[in-house]
């Protein structure tokens, strides 16, 4: 027992020693931006996409004179997808690494835990991926912004797509945490608003996140009288889901199938032709949806650098760095509260068009993209999206009152 204590003590001492050395260098010249992403474990690929997008933006900005004449430097911390780790990492970035601003967050759970601590840090945070409506809703604060589409926006668009189909009996399969449950809740409410005759089945399916085998839930939906199914399973889970659904004959059923994160390029790349044709797929940014110079340049630079078309997560992170450039230059300083203030109501040009951070909840008015899976892309090795719909960001957003945000 005594031996244990001594060892623990040693471990603690070493840990503190490394922490001390990490914080000693003081930022003089470059502007430092802290990135908080999942960089290990199953979802590490999302953090890497963000880094790829950010690296492009930082290189472009530094090559053309930086921000306020200063170079930009990124410092990353791994959130491990856990709120407690993310909060510690953010404190370390702000207090030890002296970052001027933060970008990040891949998970709704992390965002819900972390956002309430932002006023204490007095630095702006732009969320580039996490989609829970709460952080630009009831948990909102004047330091937290989001540049990516949230669940409420995407589900309003989903309900509009669903209302166009013949299906009236709807159910869901989604991961058993905030994202899956909130997706179904918002989708159901919006669909009822548009078409009061639809039936939202009480038989819903929420498998564990990371469940790997979804066969029981696939069978359950096939045996039910559902005519439409909203599927918010994502990432590696979605790859497993679709392959298992293929062997069960799920896609041959008379079902309208809607995947809320189905047009994520990493999923399409892994699946190739195994992604069926004729299902509804959504993403927060589809690289072929926007015909403007910034998008052309971004997609080309991304393809040249990494060989794959950019994912939505890379685009959000790329745009966030440009948002800071514009806000810091408008404020004329890197001072946290001043930059946060400059972001409020700011409009900017991004790959997905003009993006405005709405005053009142700090949510960017960005457009969910929905389409139907089509033939394989001749060069990119992934399914294309046909019947592409780019929903108006303003029209699918909740009103400030509905968000419950009071700034």
């Amino acid at each position, binding site marked *: 027992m005594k031996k*244990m204590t001594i060892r623990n003590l040693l471990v603690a001492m070493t840990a503190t020693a490394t922490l001390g050395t990490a914080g000693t260098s003081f930022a003089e010249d470059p502007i430092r931006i802290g990135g908080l992403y999942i960089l*290990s*474990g*199953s*979802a*590490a*690929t999302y*953090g*890497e996409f963000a880094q790829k997008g950010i690296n492009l933006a930082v290189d472009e900005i530094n090559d053309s004179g930086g921000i306020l004449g200063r170079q930009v430097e990124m410092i990353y911390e791994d959130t491990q997808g856990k709120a407690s780790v993310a909060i510690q990492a953010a404190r370390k970035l702000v207090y030890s690494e002296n970052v001027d601003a933060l970008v990040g967050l891949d998970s709704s759970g992390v965002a819900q835990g972390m956002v309430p601590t932002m006023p204490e840090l007095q630095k702006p945070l732009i969320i580039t991926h996490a989609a829970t409506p709460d952080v630009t809703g009831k948990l909102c604060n004047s330091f937290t912004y989001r540049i990516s589409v949230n669940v409420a926006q995407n589900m309003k668009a989903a309900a509009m797509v669903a209302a166009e189909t013949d299906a009236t009996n709807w159910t869901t399969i989604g991961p*058993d945490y905030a994202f899956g449950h909130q997706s179904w809740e918002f989708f159901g409410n919006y669909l009822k608003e548009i078409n009061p005759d639809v039936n939202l089945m009480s038989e*819903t*399916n*929420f*498998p*564990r996140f*990371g469940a*790997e*085998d979804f*066969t*029981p*839930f696939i*069978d*359950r939906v096939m*045996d039910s009288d559902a005519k439409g199914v909203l599927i918010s399973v994502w*990432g*590696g*889970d979605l*790859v*497993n889901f679709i*392959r*298992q659904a293929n*062997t*069960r*004959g799920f896609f041959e059923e008379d079902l309208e199938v809607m995947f809320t994160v189905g047009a994520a390029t*990493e*999923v399409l*790349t*892994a*699946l*190739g032709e*195994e992604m069926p044709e004729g299902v509804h797929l959504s993403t927060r940014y589809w690289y072929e949806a926007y015909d403007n110079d910034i998008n052309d340049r971004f997609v080309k630079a991304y393809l040249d650098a990494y060989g794959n078309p950019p994912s939505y997560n890379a685009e959000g992170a790329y745009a966030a760095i440009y948002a800071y450039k514009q806000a810091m230059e408008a404020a004329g300083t890197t001072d946290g509260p001043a930059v946060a203030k400059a972001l409020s109501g700011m409009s900017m040009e991004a790959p997905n068009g003009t993006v405005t951070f709405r005053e009142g909840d700090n949510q960017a008015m960005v457009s969910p993209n929905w389409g139907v899976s089509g033939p394989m892309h001749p060069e990119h090795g992934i399914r294309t999206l046909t019947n592409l719909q780019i929903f108006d960001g303003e029209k699918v957003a909740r009103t400030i009152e509905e968000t419950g945000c009071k700034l």
Partner: protein
Amino acid sequence: MSGIGAALLNSLDIGLLLFIIAVGLNIVFGVLNIINFAHGALYMLGAYLAFTLINIAGMPFWAALLLAPIGVAILAVIIDRVLLRFIYSRDVADSLLLTFAILLIINESVRMIWGSGIHVVQPPDLLSGSVRLLGSSVATYSLFVIVIGLLLLAGLWYLFNRTRVGRIMRAAALDRDMAEALCINTRLVVTGVFAFGAWLAAVGGVMAAPMRALDPGMGDKIIIESFIVVVIGGLGSFPGALLGAIILGLIHGFGGRYLPEVNLLLPFVGMALVLLFKPHGIMGKGAHA
């Protein structure tokens, strides 16, 4: 309609895959008295090696099923000789710490070598597609997993009960000093058993590769399930690993269909009940068997 048959086959396919993995964990604990946290990472290595051999080197699935586990077993011999041999005489807690470190190293190495993206391995042509069985359509590959699981089960039973090697392993598990006194080279046994456990993990990984998306977190997912299997069945017990794995398979296959609201809870309820009434697991004997 198709309900029960489909649920049963699904349970068996999940259960027997888990058995292949958990039994390796149990054999290593039974003989070496270490709880190998890195077991899931070795499973992941098996899957990624199979991915490399099949998708990159263009080998057939069968070659990967043969070669990848041997590769992982060789790595296990190195891990044993370079690291683990220093801690066999120490407390179990030390082995937990060391194997946890090995897990972190393997996890990060996999991410550095193969990237963090999602990879997919196709089943061999012979086993792709699905067949009608018990009134539902079942992936042919799932049936293959069930057959291999049963063959391994029979093979392991034979090994432990009918062969000299098996008896030596059991002797070393019961009393290593006495085994040594009887001129058994226990060092060889120890290394051999650790490599064998890793081989089993990697066989599980290769078997899982065509039915599971590969990502650098797949080892962490399986180790948690394997620990639940082992707690329910009994740490160190061979029949316990089978029983625990089948119970978990049934919880998954039937729970997901008929009690979906509590499907997350069921494995842990099972674990809590076993811990309350049979603290050493259903087949556990108190000390390791």
